[in-house]
């Protein structure tokens, strides 16, 4: 089955005429994703990579019945793009954009939820269900269809893990990059819930990093609510406190958000933690053997 995106995904690209937007539209089309519309205000009527461009999301949805949107709009206009997609009734919004002010996201996350839509990101690599649809900026070629769910706050670290999995013949059901900002639309738990219900997914890999307590909450949830095995990888053991490590959300502040604390919580609940991306493969192989 996979989660969030599949062959029924009808994708709309917000910011399709931009450099990033048009480049990744081509990449997603090549992967086989049904990219059926694009939106850039004021540029309606054009075609990008054969995809019709509209001025507004509402028009695009009316014409094409798009059900998912991906946002490549620059940070200062991205929040507006999220609101526009929500108001047009899009049920899944994936926001790639990095650098959106946190307080804008506090409001946007609240509104999206109020309207019954789902937001992935911002500052994320997107979602891919191998063999079905790619809604993001990840390299499609490193993925392989299979039964492992991957959920991560990072981009390239996820690629690294997925690449090793695929090389060792472990395919993926869906890989979700939830984003590196302090306030994001979907947390680990939101995605874990979906994987737990998904018939294709047999085990899940959670890739976390320093900052916040989302990993700790996830560990509690896995312990009390999940039957499927989960393996964790946490980046940032060597990160100093008070410094932002690239991602806006990757910062240890006031003694909370350390990798040590996160790893301790997973271990407390007997959830295996890999000490390197390479070791994830060994741990996956072990839990799959155990669960048959």
């Amino acid at each position, binding site marked *: 089955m996979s989660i969030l995106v599949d062959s029924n995904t009808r994708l709309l690209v917000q910011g399709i005429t931009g450099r990033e937007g048009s480049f990744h539209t081509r990449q997603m089309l090549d992967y086989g994703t049904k990219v059926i519309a694009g939106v850039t205000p004021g540029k309606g009527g054009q075609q990008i990579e054969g995809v019709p461009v509209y001025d507004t999301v509402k028009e695009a949805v009316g014409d094409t019945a798009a059900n998912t949107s991906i946002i490549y709009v620059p940070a*200062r206009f991205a929040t507006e793009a999220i609101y526009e997609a929500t108001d047009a009734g899009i049920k899944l919004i994936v926001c790639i954009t990095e650098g959106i002010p*946190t307080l804008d996201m506090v409001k946007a996350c609240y*509104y999206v939820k109020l309207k019954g839509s789902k937001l992935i990101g911002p500052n994320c690599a997107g979602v891919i269900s191998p063999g079905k649809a790619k809604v993001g900026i990840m390299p499609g*070629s490193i993925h392989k269809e299979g039964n492992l769910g991957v959920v991560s706050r*990072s981009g390239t*670290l996820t690629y690294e893990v997925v690449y090793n999995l695929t090389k060792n013949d472990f395919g993926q059901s869906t890989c979700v990059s939830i984003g590196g900002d302090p306030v994001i639309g979907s947390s680990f738990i939101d995605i874990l819930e979906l994987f737990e219900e998904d018939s294709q997914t047999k085990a899940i890999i959670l890739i976390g990093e320093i900052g916040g307590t989302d990993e700790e909450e996830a560990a509690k949830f896995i312990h009390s609510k999940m039957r499927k095995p989960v393996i964790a990888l946490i980046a940032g053991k060597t990160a100093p406190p008070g410094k932002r490590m690239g991602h*806006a959300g990757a910062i240890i502040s006031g003694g909370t958000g350390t990798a040590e604390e996160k790893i301790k919580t997973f271990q407390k609940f007997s959830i295996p933690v890999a000490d*390197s991306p390479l070791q994830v493969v060994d741990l996956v192989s072990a839990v799959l053997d155990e669960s048959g």
Partner: protein
Amino acid sequence: MKIYEFQAYEIFIKRGIPSPWGEVAKTSEEVKKIAEKLGRPVVVKAQVLVGGRGKAGGIKLASTPEEAYRAAERILNSKLKGILVKRIFVKESVSIKEEYYLGVTVDRAQKRVVVMVSPAGGIDIEEVARTNPEKIFKFYVNPLLGFRSHQADELASALTKDKNLVKGIAKILSDLYRIFEEMDCSLVEVNPLVITKEGSLFALDAKIIFDDNALYRHPEISSLRDLEVEDPLEVRAKEAGISYVKLEGNIGCIVNGAGLAMATMDLVKHYGAEPANFLDVGGGASSQQVGKALDIILSDEQVRAVLVNIFGGITRCDIVAEGLIQALSKREMNLPLIIRLTGTNEEEGRKKLKGIKGIFLAATMNEAAKKAMEVVKS
């Protein structure tokens, strides 16, 4: 972005938050003059962008201008928690009956702004959260409604039963929230807010941290930045669009992606060596970006070896390898360079780099980190 107490104090004053009178000084002479002008006991406070100044000896009470001078002599140009003190904030001293904590921040898990108060003021709030979490009262703000005055009243009454004080504290809470919201902050904090023996309220400290992502719409805030105290390499990296954080080790790391960069540093440590930095070259890993990253790493005199860990995804490994070769050809490199390229077209990429003097090719991250350790330890 952090600002100094005296800068946050000025913002507080403009918003009408009651604060003891104060002035900033750069020399002990100036400190003495300010104390003389005031004609009352003062508090001499080191201005550095780290917490826990009191414990570290950066805050002194002085009853006379001479005492203030002597305190300033000790503090100015000394190092507080490793940071050089260049400025002193001289503040009127007030009598203290009660100390409270007030703060506004973003609760990441709740995805809401949270306004917090605690009767355990004057101490580190994280310490209170660990030892006496029941002493912290929180109000989660509805994002569409904002922080209403009756909500501020209710939160303030967790601190005192005195109706006048509740009113005063509620007003301060509303003002703090307004600063937080209007200036796109990630933290606004008063610790402590004191009630004097005469029954007045005063914010004895002022702390504001701004959201870096929102600075573009607040040009007036960017001008408060003190570039002098920032690491010059970090400033240079930022200008080049590179995320860089200087650390204490000797293995320079160049990686694409923040998560992968952290995982690389962790592995270096895992094999018994120390990373010299965090560095994310950003998407694409073009030869220009890699070149800039190399320049930054090579400017760090502690670096003994350079570890490059690039995941070639949409940008193929052979293109990344060409970029690396180009970047290297323009620079004098006397340090061993350990390169690990993986992802799309990795074989072609490695072939291009094979046999170049001074370059060690590693097949995995683990091998690369181990090699880097061996090189610096030999």
